[in-house]
């Protein structure tokens, strides 16, 4: 148990995190960009057309990773909200501030690719079903986290309000996930369910897996980089930061 407590306290220290995270950003960018390049070229150029959707299937390799990642970013933000509300850890607040706009962009990417895919396959770009509406709500939540912080003048109050919204908004995540099973929707049910054989042929599954991993790595790098920028912004006057800058 000792090491958990130590990691928790260290990650909570902007100074320790700032010093150790630079290599992570570079590494995650490199690995993420390479995987996305491989997965996208593979998916867009070398995968056969799907039996019913034809070439439209290729949008899957962007849409599914983006949609999955958007939810994961929100869960991370909600956990950070919880940590901030209970322990008042500054780093958790900075993580919310750094990740919210990134989550918004990833959610919009998922929505946009979904619309582009829907036009040739469903016959319409948008329907107001439970999956699309809950995902649209996710985009609004990310946007709301950014807007709420800017709307409240006092930073300490803004941080608490944002953390509370982040935490309460997490109830939307199971709704997104199970919307296609609880309600009648036009959106299809999941093709990959843990413990079941994937309904998606290996020829599509492989580039998809590469892109999912690539999206996670790359965006993790972006979030860490944004978090470092927040640290510089908030701890700008700290002696350790001046020392670090003059050293490098």
């Amino acid at each position: 148990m000792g090491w958990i407590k130590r990691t928790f306290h260290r990650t909570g220290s902007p100074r320790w995190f700032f010093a150790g995270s630079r290599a992570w950003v570079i590494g995650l960018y490199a690995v993420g960009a390479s995987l996305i390049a491989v997965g996208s070229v593979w998916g867009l150029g070398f995968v056969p057309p799907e039996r019913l959707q034809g070439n439209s299937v290729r949008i899957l390799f962007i849409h599914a990773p983006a949609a999955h990642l958007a939810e994961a970013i929100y869960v991370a933000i909600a956990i950070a909200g919880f940590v901030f509300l209970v322990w008042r850890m500054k780093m958790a607040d900075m993580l919310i501030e750094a990740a919210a706009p990134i989550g918004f962009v990833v959610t919009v990417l998922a929505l946009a690719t979904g619309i582009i895919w829907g036009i040739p396959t469903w016959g319409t770009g948008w329907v107001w079903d439970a999956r699309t509406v809950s995902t649209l709500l996710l985009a609004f939540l990310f946007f709301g986290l950014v807007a709420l912080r800017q709307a409240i003048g006092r930073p300490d109050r803004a941080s608490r309000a944002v953390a509370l919204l982040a935490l309460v908004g997490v109830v939307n995540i199971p709704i997104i996930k199970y919307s296609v099973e609880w309600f009648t929707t036009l959106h299809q049910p999941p093709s990959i369910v843990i413990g079941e054989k994937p309904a998606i042929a290996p020829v599509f599954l492989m580039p998809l897996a590469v892109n999912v991993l690539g999206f996670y790595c790359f965006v993790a790098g972006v979030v860490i980089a944004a978090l470092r920028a927040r640290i510089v912004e908030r701890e700008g006057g700290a002696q350790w930061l001046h020392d670090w800058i003059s050293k490098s």
Partner: protein
Amino acid sequence: MRRVRQRRLAVVLFVVAGATATLSFALLALQEDVGLFYEPARVTNGEAPLGVDIRAGGIVREGSVDYEEEGLGVTFSITDYQGHEFDVRYVGPLPDLFKECKGIMVRGQLTEHGLFNANEVLAKHDENYVPHETRDIVADRDCPPLETADEAGLRTAAIR
């Protein structure tokens, strides 16, 4: 854990539990209204209102698609493979993924005679992704025998 943190933890857990409970009750109460369309069973048992714009969905029954000789008119039956079925008439271009034994959603009005006059037909893609090359091997997969429809996941995919 210090007392102040324990108190914060209790408040935070209470807020999350409250939000979850509120939303769960709301969704349970609204379950059928949150759904996008009426399933075949709800159309045939009279739950779906007549003469107003509604959405209905299910599976296009094998062999029921009948193109009219003149124009773009088409009639077909939507079924749930569980004995509930209704006829649809639609005039206009159908989506590429409109196929027998595949999920479909129609928007339009249900008449007294049980005919659904559709002014929009949308295809519901299911969760299966099969490459084009293997089409011959699974040539019959579009329309599996009725007793295996459930195993193929088609029934659940189209109804839900």
